[in-house]
């Protein structure tokens, strides 16, 4: 891959990735030999109909599922070679997750939710607090640190989830339909935030969505169909 600054080592390299699920007596092919590279700082949107394999691809490159065959190299590490324990540590340091239904812990405040992945690091309590404050301020919720999820709107909850995802400063942000449960205004806020993280903080964002409007925020969209990449479209710049 080349950019205006010259060749860049891909952050994600996927080769012949296949995932076959067993449903009763039937084998279902979710991914059929997908190969692609993703550059650092790219905002990749995965699109396609239900069952096309986009979520499966997201899960595999985020290290929360195992491929049937093929390789996923993230920052040069073949995550298929990591055991469960190593993979958990790798996810904590390298991947931030944003889910459709926010998945915040209801009994914890916004700050405590953001602090959760930091509990696994060697940071001191004060360092964790500082990092949590930074993450919440970055998503515009510095004043909501002590609110519980049920005291926040859907858009605010998703922004807390994004703060949690970036708390450990991972290189990769994966988002599975992050605007699926949000109104148009909140969705736009969240997408702008993800776009800003990609553009300004250099995070590689990989987002699954059904919404063409949401897809327009990315720099690249991959259209999957029956487990294969049907189209790979690159935008010249961030929109809108």
């Amino acid at each position, binding site marked *: 891959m080349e950019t205006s600054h010259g060749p860049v080592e891909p952050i994600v390299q996927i080769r012949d990735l296949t995932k076959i699920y067993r449903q009763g007596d039937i084998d279902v092919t979710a991914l059929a030999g997908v190969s692609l590279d993703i550059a650092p700082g790219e905002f990749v949107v995965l699109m396609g109909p239900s069952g096309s394999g986009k979520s499966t691809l997201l899960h595999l490159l985020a290290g929360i599922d195992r491929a049937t065959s093929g390789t996923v190299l993230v920052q040069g590490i073949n995550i298929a070679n990591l055991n469960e324990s190593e993979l958990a540590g790798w996810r904590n340091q390298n991947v931030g*997750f944003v889910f459709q239904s926010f*998945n915040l812990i209801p009994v914890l405040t916004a700050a405590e939710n953001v602090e959760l992945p930091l509990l*696994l690091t060697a940071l001191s309590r004060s360092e964790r607090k500082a990092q949590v404050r930074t993450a919440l301020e970055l998503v515009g919720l510095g004043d909501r640190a002590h609110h519980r999820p049920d005291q926040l709107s859907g858009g605010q909850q998703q922004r807390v989830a994004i703060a949690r995802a970036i708390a450990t400063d991972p290189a990769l942000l994966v988002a599975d339909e992050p605007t699926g449960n949000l109104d148009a205004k909140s969705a736009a806020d969240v997408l702008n935030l993800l776009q800003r993280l990609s553009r300004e903080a250099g995070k590689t964002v990989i987002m699954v969505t059904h919404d063409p409007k949401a897809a327009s925020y990315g720099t690249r969209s991959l259209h999957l169909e029956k487990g294969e990449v049907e189209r790979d479209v690159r935008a010249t710049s961030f929109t809108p």
Partner: protein
Amino acid sequence: MTLASFVAKNALRNRRRALLTILSVAISCALLVTLLTLQRELTTPPESEASSLRIIARNKVSLMQPLPYKQLTQIERIPGVKQVSPFTYFGGKFRDEEATGWAQFAVDPARFRQLIIEGRITDGSYEDFIRDRNSCLLGRDTLDRYQLKVGDKLKFTGTFYPVDFEVRIAAVYQGTVDDRNCFFHHKLLDELMGGWGMAGTWYLCADSPAVVNDVINRVDATFANTSAEVRTETERAFQLSFVSMFGNVKLLTGAISLVVVFTLILVSASTMSMAIRERFRELAVLKALGFQRRELAGFILAESFALSTLGGALGIGGAWAFWNQMDVLTFGHLTLQKLTKGFMPYFEVTPRIMATGAIVAAVLGIVAAIMPMITMSRTSVVEGLKTLD
């Protein structure tokens, strides 16, 4: 936030369920401690220094068969015997009670004095008891229970023996392991029975603990091959054999205790399974964030352990307070004597029993967490994320 506060918040997230779980464990632990205490009180008679010297000789055929009174002079000549007194269980009914929960024994007052050395006279005088054949020595617990005083007369109706009698309270004793009994003159019983010439059992005191076994053997040998052979044993052994007449109390209380523990495990395991099942999605998110199986298992175990030990502490502490401090807590309105109508003079929740209850509560916390931990461990992140909230 710390991992401990995270566990605490999770444990209390459904406060009603947490409270009900804690209460169910607390009540079950209180029941378990009560059963274990009951078992101990019924099967392990209390011991004292004086009781280690005391020996009881009864008819070898049966406890119900009396012994000839003339054996007394032979027994007191046996080396190592410091004192001996007739000791005949009267088993009468006091006043109009259907069943009297304390015993009356016919003794020789002068001899008997050396046999209850741990008892002290708190009211009246022992000499008065010795002098007056129609008097008695009454335990403090019974005196207080019926609000009696020295000089009052007690009327008993015989159930084992076909005689009734009335005695005056000459003295009150306290400080023995059972301060409920009434002791009266054996001569009175003998007269009422028309010159009976028998005694229910012999109550002996040895010179020292070292000679107790020798005394037992000598007494048995003295009456071997006579028309009234005796079976001699320590007071403690006698009490244990007496308890065995209730049936297998140990087996019964043990079986009930096991059922309580088993039910408790089912209830707690079910509650923990519910608590974890409804958080599968959250656990999957935590896994995605980098938490490992062992850490999540630790959360589940800590939560289960915290709930069960808190319940255990409440139940065990409650049982201790109720049984050991009943009179203090109720300002004397309720005592064990009143509650059990005199059947149980003592019901002490000991540190050992409390420790057993605590161990059960702790093990319960661990066992209840096993299935949820296994299920969590087997569920992948993707499967967990697919579960509904």
